[in-house]
């Protein structure tokens, strides 16, 4: 009882909030809809008025023309004016407003044609009729000119040209769409997207989605009523059956199946009932099959004792089902019968015979696709159903069964099903070789699902290794075959999968005593082999992935060796040697790739292995750092750098530069600590400076972007001296002071760069200022973060971060500049905005209590959105606002249920702040909707951040998809993990209702369909989960609440069904 009360309490607060929210949305929706209806009535009245006016004008024109002189004077005028700008009367427009413009030219053509028919000689009247319907862009004007040139009146040709009269626009709407004879109305009026007054055009046929949706939504009440009646009858049947023997019950089921079959035969007599007849027949087959299974498996109906009879009976039921599926002749029937047959077989004991039967059923289900290559869904269903069957079978087998029964037999079955599925998949692809998402998805699904099933049979030894290698080789060959046939996408897919399998095969060697580092090295071998093999044939995705694998495994290898060295000590293993060998191998491969590129032997990519070599050196650097006390450490690191530099002198590549830079970056903290700032003046420190300085100098000499300038050295010296002096003289007062001073210095450098005398060295001054800011960031990360000093309730660290945000904002504002063409340019220093955001992120993470981080992120999202809207040069803040919004939702979705607190205060509870975040996120969506309507000139971004432009553009175009759908997704997850599972169905149904209401308000077709899909899923949960597990009272409440919401959805559908019309193309 306590739990129930607690559940109700937990439910009541969000529930009330949710209901209040839904009520508000409902009220707003009804107000908006009323206003819309009033507007629409006004529009209709106006349209009628305009149409009548147009008709009057047209008739007047005709009367006037009949009274006029012959055609010659008119010819000159008609030819002289543009044809297109005839004003579009609303009666002719069947498309929503955007298409109104596109309708104009054909209307002009037909108007002219009508006039020509009315006035031209009989021999000419057929011309417009023949020409206009073709609507060819180049012909339409001529078609107009021809008759009009003889007869068109001056009223038809207004003087202003129309920009919409493009050929494409003319082609957009068929001329046949315009029937009534119309003329120019007194004023142009863009009609709304309402049904046309003169609806002489056939509406486009509804999409399958719309049909399904209308079926689900519109017939909800009827379906639920039917279900209730059927349930009642079923309960009566159960009552009756309880009085019978098991065999009698089986007879009852068979009789029911036979009755259904009879109904199907009767229905099939009429053509319009054919589809229903087939489905009824399928239902009969299903009931018969379930009866057979129950006869051998479930006690109340079990009358078969002999295993042979049992299998024969079930086999017969399966055969009947398959035959019915086959005879029905459609993919849907076949898929249903195959999946039902396999589901029935799952109910049998997990012995070899049902497995064999399932293999036959699934195999037949797959091979039928060979005859019907378009039946992709059937293949997917057959494979999925078999994989499900196999999983169920495996989990229910007795672990003590002999190997051949538990592993070998199912593996053989999987091989058969997998090969049949692949064969079928390849046949389908060869029949239609072009890349289609569904075909690719199906192929990958076949590979993934069957492959995952194999993973269950871990038989130890070499079986998995050999099996994976064999599969890899097989797919490799298949991919080669596909390449020969010119199916490039399947070649790449299979080649990548074969690479993954080979890598997996190497991973299975863990059971043969290889340690982590060796295992990773082995796993990297396939990537290197695939790379070498494919790079000879040119670039492509396979090369990219194999290259990434080679880099990745090299780095993992370096890391794992580092771990071993850290655990065992530098002198206890050969880690340093292994790393050195890795660097050598990477450099050799790099040299090979570059050499081939240099010879122009095909379009070889730059392998970039020099970058990995540098990173491995960075790893070595870090490993050696463990032994920083040893005097030889800097020398060893210097040796590594020396090797890289020597290689670079011999062969200069950008990747090697990158690698060297990364190694230097990794070395920097090492050197700083050794310079000590730990123990200044020691030999190690001196040596470290040399080690750091020499490569830097060599890098600078060898083509780094560095040009001599007279002031460079003095300015660099001043910059460095100011850094060091400010640190040395303030650090003893407070560890925060150097950082604060460096921030001030950074701004000072920027301001000095703006002074007139510094114009020549402005760039360098900015670089020094930016580097000073960078020094602050490094120091803040390494030193300030550990400082917990406070001033009252304020953390000094947080306050310094906010000051740094201000400074970074100052830089960001100062770096944007207007170009000559008026656009805003943002250089590399534009990254200061991102630096400010990173600091804000650190501030939120460290200073804001856990439950309030999500609301803080959302507040940041609001601030960024407003800032971006306000500041044209920082428009990309809007994109970062979306990122912050998504992060807030992620936290709500995945952390609200996990942030436990011993406090009982409501505001300390993560679920409360999560709810606030979700409500806030909804408001952000509303704000974005209003912002999306404003014009947006440009989104200036620094180099490398182009995706932000795309993000802002996409979010403006699809605001709901970017800002509303994630809210609903997060809400669904949040509800699932925050509240009791007993009330979850009701909460989810409430969410679906909310989505449905939002969809009506926003006229959002996708959201509406998602809502309906959600309703279907929640209904499934209601039937499967709640009926089985929920407590009686909770179950009753859930059923009542969910049913009420369903009825509300149904009522809303019927009330606002005009908003559900299929949007016309282009709207």
């Amino acid at each position, binding site marked *: 009882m306590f739990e129930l009360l607690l559940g109700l309490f937990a439910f009541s607060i969000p529930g009330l909030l949710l209901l209040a929210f839904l009520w508000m949305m409902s009220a707003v929706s009804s107000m908006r809809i009323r206003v819309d209806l009033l507007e629409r009535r006004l529009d209709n009245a106006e349209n009628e008025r305009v149409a009548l006016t147009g008709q009057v004008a047209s008739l007047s024109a005709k009367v006037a023309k009949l009274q006029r002189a012959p055609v010659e004077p008119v010819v000159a005028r008609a030819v002289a004016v543009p044809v297109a700008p005839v004003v579009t009367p609303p009666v002719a427009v069947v498309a929503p407003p955007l298409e109104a413009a596109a309708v104009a030219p054909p209307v002009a053509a037909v108007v002219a044609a009508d006039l020509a028919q009315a006035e031209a000689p009989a021999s000419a009247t057929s011309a417009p009729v023949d020409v206009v319907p073709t609507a060819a862009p180049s012909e339409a004007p001529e078609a107009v000119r021809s008759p009009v040139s003889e007869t068109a009146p001056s009223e038809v040709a207004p003087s202003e040209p129309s920009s919409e009269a493009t050929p494409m626009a003319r082609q957009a709407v068929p001329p046949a769409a315009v029937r009534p004879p119309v003329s120019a109305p007194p004023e142009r009026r863009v009609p709304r997207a309402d049904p046309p007054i003169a609806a002489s055009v056939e509406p486009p046929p509804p999409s399958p989605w719309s049909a399904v949706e209308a079926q689900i939504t519109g017939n909800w009440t009827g379906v639920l009523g039917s279900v209730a009646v059927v349930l009642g009858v079923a309960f009566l049947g159960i009552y009756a059956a309880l009085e019978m023997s098991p065999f009698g019950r089986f007879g009852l089921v068979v009789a029911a199946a036979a009755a259904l079959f009879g109904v199907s035969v009767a229905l099939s007599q009429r053509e319009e009932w054919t589809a229903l007849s087939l489905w009824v027949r399928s239902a009969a087959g299903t009931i018969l099959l379930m009866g057979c299974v129950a006869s051998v498996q479930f006690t109340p109906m079990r009358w078969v004792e002999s295993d042979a009879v049992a299998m024969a009976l079930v086999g017969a039921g399966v055969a009947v089902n398959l035959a019915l599926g086959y005879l029905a002749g459609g993919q849907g029937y076949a898929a249903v019968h195959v999946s039902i047959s396999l589901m029935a077989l799952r109910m049998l004991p997990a012995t070899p015979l049902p497995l064999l039967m399932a293999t036959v059923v699934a195999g037949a289900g797959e091979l039928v696709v060979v005859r019907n290559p378009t039946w992709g869904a059937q293949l997917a269903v057959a494979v999925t159903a078999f994989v499900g069957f196999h999983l169920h079978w495996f*989990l229910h087998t007795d672990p003590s069964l002999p190997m051949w029964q538990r592993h070998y037999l199912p593996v053989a079955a999987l091989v058969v099903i997998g090969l049949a599925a692949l064969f079928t998949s390849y046949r389908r692809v060869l029949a239609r070789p072009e890349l289609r998402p569904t075909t690719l998805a199906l192929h990958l699904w076949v590979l993934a699902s069957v492959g995952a099933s194999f*993973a*269950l049979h*871990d038989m130890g030894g070499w079986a998995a290794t050999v099996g994976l290698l064999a599969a890899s080789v097989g797919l490799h060959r298949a991919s080669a075959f596909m390449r020969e046939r010119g199916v490039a996408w399947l070649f790449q897919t299979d080649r990548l999968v074969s690479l993954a399998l080979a890598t997996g095969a190497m991973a299975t060697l*863990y059971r043969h005593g290889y340690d982590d580092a060796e295992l990773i090295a082995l796993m990297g071998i396939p990537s290197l082999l695939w790379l070498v093999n494919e790079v000879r044939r040119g670039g492509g995705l396979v090369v990219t992935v194999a290259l990434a694998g080679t880099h990745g495994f090299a780095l993992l290898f370096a890391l794992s060796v*580092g771990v071993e060295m*850290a655990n065992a000590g530098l002198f206890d293993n050969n880690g340093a040697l292994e790393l050195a060998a890795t660097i050598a191998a990477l450099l050799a491969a790099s040299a090979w790739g570059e050499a081939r590129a240099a010879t122009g032997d095909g379009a070889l990519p730059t392998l970039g292995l020099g970058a990995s070599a540098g990173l491995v050196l960075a790893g070595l650097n*870090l*490993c050696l*750092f*463990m032994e920083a006390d040893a005097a030889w450490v800097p020398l060893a690191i210097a040796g590594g750098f020396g090797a890289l530099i020597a290689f670079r002198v011999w062969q200069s590549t950008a990747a090697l530069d990158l690698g060297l830079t990364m190694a230097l970056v990794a070395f920097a*903290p090492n050197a*700083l*600590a050794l310079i*000590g*700032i730990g123990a200044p003046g020691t030999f190690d420190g001196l040596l470290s400076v040399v080690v750091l300085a020499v490569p830097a100098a060599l890098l600078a000499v060898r083509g780094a972007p560095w040009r001599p300038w007279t002031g460079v050295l003095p300015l660099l010296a001043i910059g460095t001296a100011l850094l060091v002096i400010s640190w040395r003289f303030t*650090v*003893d*007062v*407070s*560890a*925060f*002071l150097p950082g*604060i*001073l460096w*921030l*001030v210095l950074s*701004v000072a450098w920027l*301001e000095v760069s703006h002074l007139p005398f510094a114009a020549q060295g402005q760039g360098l001054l900015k670089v020094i200022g930016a580097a000073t800011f960078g020094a602050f960031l490094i120091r803040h*990360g*390494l*030193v300030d*973060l*550990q*400082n*917990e*000093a*406070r*001033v*009252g*309730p304020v953390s*000094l660290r947080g*306050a310094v971060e906010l*000051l740094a945000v*201000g*400074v970074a904002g100052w830089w960001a504002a100062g770096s944007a500049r207007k170009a000559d063409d008026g656009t805003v340019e943002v250089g590399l220093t534009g990254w200061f905005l991102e630096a400010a955001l990173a600091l804000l992120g*650190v501030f939120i993470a460290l200073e804001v209590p856990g439950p309030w981080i999500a609301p803080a992120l959302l507040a940041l999202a609001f601030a960024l959105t407003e800032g971006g809207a306000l500041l044209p040069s920082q428009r990309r803040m809007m994109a970062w606002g979306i990122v912050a919004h998504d992060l807030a939702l*992620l936290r709500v*979705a*995945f*952390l609200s249920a*996990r*942030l*436990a*607190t*011993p*406090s*009982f205060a409501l505001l*300390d509870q993560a679920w409360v702040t999560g709810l606030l975040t979700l409500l806030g996120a909804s408001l952000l969506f509303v704000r974005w909707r209003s912002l999306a309507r404003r014009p947006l000139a440009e989104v200036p971004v620094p180099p490398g951040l182009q995706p932000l432009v795309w993000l802002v553009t996409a979010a403006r175009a699809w605001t709901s998809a970017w800002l509303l759908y994630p809210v609903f997704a997060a809400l669904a997850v949040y509800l699932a*993990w925050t509240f009791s599972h007993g009330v979850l169905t009701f909460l989810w149904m409430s969410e679906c209702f909310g989505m449905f209401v939002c969809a009506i308000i926003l006229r959002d077709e996708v959201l509406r369909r998602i809502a309906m899909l959600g309703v279907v899923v929640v209904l499934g949960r209601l039937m499967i989960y709640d009926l089985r597990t929920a407590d009686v009272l909770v179950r009753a409440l859930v059923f009542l609440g969910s049913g009420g919401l369903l009825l509300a959805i149904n009522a809303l559908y019927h009330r606002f069904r005009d908003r559900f019309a299929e949007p016309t193309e282009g709207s």
Partner: protein
Amino acid sequence: MNGRIVGLILLATVAAALGFAASQRDPGSDRPTLNPALELAGRPVQLVDRAVSQTLGMDALDEAALGREILARSPWRELPGPRQDAVRAVVAELAKGAHKPFDYRAFLVDEPYPNAFAMPGGVVLVTRPLLDLLAEDELASVLAHEIGHVELSHGLDAAKFEIAAKKLKVHELGAIADLLYGVFVRHAYSKAAEAEADDYAFEALVASRWDPGAQARAFGRLLALDHDAPGGLRPLRDFFASHPDLTHREAEFRARAEAWWADHPGEQRVRGSGPIAETSGLP
């Protein structure tokens, strides 16, 4: 006045005020360490890891079963007696603020070093020497930290693949997955998890009758035992360290306790005068 000038004056003023405020406080350490930065960087990894745990759909029953299994496999056996009773009394008091449906229990175990650790499912193990080191309120802070691990499901996160694999009856795969995951991922965020448990412990002390400053004192006592005190910048060691730096933890929670006491000047809290084994006369 030019807006730019105003902005500059504002920045300079804030910087000066901050500099002055900082100069009035303890100078703090100038020793560079990657530990806090790594803890921070581990938070997104932890978020993703938790999403994976949530998706695998484990619940309290799974967690309790796992805890029982680990305890059965472990070499530790409880040491009934007055010490264990004392520890259990503290745990029982702390567990009043817990939300998970576990019967929180504490076992005293025989180990030579002072330590405490938590099992999934609500079992907290405390070594005997810990009671010779910490006062009652300090012991409460350590136990609250361990309860925090359970409440925040850190143990569940560490063994999620094994639990999920058990449901599928493929234990070995799960254990291997957890092992690999632990090697490659968990190091990245274990410090974040420890910091989270620290936060929980502080909140638990605030909600209890004990002094919130006890947490910092407990860290201080453990720090005194730490012979491998950090020195210099050691990225690898910092990365592979499972816990945040004790020095940092001590400073952080001392500052937070001082802030709390500044906000609650009239509050009465229990503060131990010596190791609980001494003050309570535990054998």
